[in-house]
């Protein structure tokens, strides 16, 4: 019997702190927050049950709706932008280029920096009076217009640019690792058949990278939902609500606007979003993994 052979008393004791963390922090506080979203809590938690009133209020609050729209725009462009650029960079580096490690170091270094630093660099670069726009005008192109960061319709795209600059390198290293795992025989066979290189990447390499791309996409998608400090540092959510995001909306309502119930409702919606996004991906990977092991 394994339990007597392994005598797990010390092991149980060693895991005790983690049990406490899981029970109290991960499960306990979540239940606390979710139940708070059904109350009329403002500055202090209240036990006055109001049903779904906070959710109804949430989805009629323009700032929250703007935050959700921005999150969809930002999330779609950021994840797809990082995946496409990261894949192209990996494919280019996979072509046996000179100075490969120099290029790799350059493409990944922004990932080592914080979102605050990333946001502040790009805030400065995109400064309409002293940044890129001013410099291009000074070079003689007087009508050059690149003031996206103060333009309500374009500001969210500046967050996308900064995000891709920071995150594309992650996709590159993960995809490159996957590409290096593809056998030389497959390459030889495809080249002997006269298939053009781009076609090999599209039809032979890409399908084999599904696991790396899914893993990278998951990390990026989780990052989208967490996006807070990048926006705080770069635009503060403005101009207007142009770069407001859900995580920031929740933080503001928790700690500045004293709107605990509303913030808790927003946080619950975020958790549900994660479940809706993650569970199908996990399930798909699990099913495929099971099929593969059944086939072997």
């Amino acid at each position: 019997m394994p339990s007597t052979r392994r005598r797990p008393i010390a092991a149980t004791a060693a895991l005790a702190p983690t049990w406490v963390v899981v029970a109290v922090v991960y499960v306990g506080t979540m239940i606390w927050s979710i139940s708070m979203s059904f109350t009329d809590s403002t500055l202090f938690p209240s036990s006055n049950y109001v049903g779904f009133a906070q959710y109804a209020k949430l989805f009629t609050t323009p700032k929250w709706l703007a935050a959700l729209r921005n999150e969809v725009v930002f999330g779609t462009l950021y994840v797809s932008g990082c995946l496409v650029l990261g894949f192209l960079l990996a494919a280019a580096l996979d072509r046996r280029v000179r100075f490969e490690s120099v290029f790799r170091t350059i493409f990944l270094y922004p990932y080592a920096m914080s979102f605050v630093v990333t946001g502040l660099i790009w805030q400065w670069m995109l400064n309409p009076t002293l940044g890129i726009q001013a410099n291009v005008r000074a070079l003689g192109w007087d009508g050059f217009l690149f003031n996206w960061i103060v333009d309500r319709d374009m500001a969210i795209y500046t967050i996308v640019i900064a995000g891709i600059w920071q995150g594309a390198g992650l996709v590159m290293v993960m995809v490159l690792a996957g590409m290096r795992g593809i056998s030389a025989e497959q390459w030889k066979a495809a080249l002997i058949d006269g298939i053009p290189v781009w076609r090999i990447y599209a039809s032979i390499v890409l399908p084999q990278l599904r696991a790396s791309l899914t893993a990278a996409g998951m990390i990026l998608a989780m990052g989208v939902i967490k996006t807070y400090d990048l926006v705080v540092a770069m635009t503060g959510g403005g101009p207007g609500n142009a770069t407001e995001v859900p995580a920031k909306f929740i933080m503001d309502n928790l700690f500045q606007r004293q709107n605990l119930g509303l913030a808790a409702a927003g946080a619950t919606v975020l958790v549900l979003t994660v479940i809706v996004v993650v569970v199908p991906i996990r399930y798909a990977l699990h099913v495929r993994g099971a099929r593969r092991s059944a086939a072997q």
Partner: protein
Amino acid sequence: MTTVNPNGPRPARITAGRVGLYAFLLAVALFFLVPLYVMLVTSVKTMSEIRQGQIFALPAGLDWSTWQTAWSGACMGLQCVGVRVGFWNSVRITLPSVALSVLLGALNGYALSFWRPKGSTLLFGVLMAGGLIPYQIFLYPLVRMMAVTGLYGSITGVVVVHVIFGLPLVTLLFRNYFMGVPDELYRAARVDGAGFWRIFFEVMLPISIPMVVVASIFQFTGIWNDFLFSLVFAGTDNLPMTVQLNNIVNTTMGERAYNVNMAATILTALVPLAIYFLSGRWFVSGITAGAVKG
């Protein structure tokens, strides 16, 4: 684009495809490097130079006094102490957080892979699920609990929070690592009469040094770069560099000292960048190891 032979010589022929390939790589490299260049040159320019609006121009001279100001004199509101204070707070937050989370994660991974006491699967499952949940749902109740225990607004409080939220990933890293260690090693140690703790400290921890390094680098950059937890839990006296930097840049009254701001930004990025450049492959294994079998 003619030969792809992993062991052969580099293709010497210059084709249009090769030129396009390098043009693409160089163009993207430029996009990645320009912000770093702009940061550096802005930090050593004088304000009158900056007002000319030539962000890409080389500086007329090297004015390093901005760095001095950023380090020890830049203002957050009325308080002019520079990022120096934040630097030391970051050190005081990061070092214990990294040490504790890596040690606890290693212990978890070891217990969950070799010993598997009752409930292990459940614990691991909930921990992994917890690692995916957005932090906003935990924050307010955690603030209240910290306040009750007197940890709110202290370095210890932030360290505890960092350890708690670092656990899922570090545990996963070590569990996967120990799953790859042959069970014979564990059994041999058991036959020799070693118990749970002795096997951990004398056998398993020493052989997992590579993972300790990877996890430490990963945790160090993550915690050094953290903004959210420190903002909420550290209290105004213990703000780390990231929060302080954001306050310096975004709450200035009057004209912004862009040169000082950029110097402060570089200073804040310096530690994780140094780790990245020095540790190279270790950094890369840190960010990819957690993802491979998440």
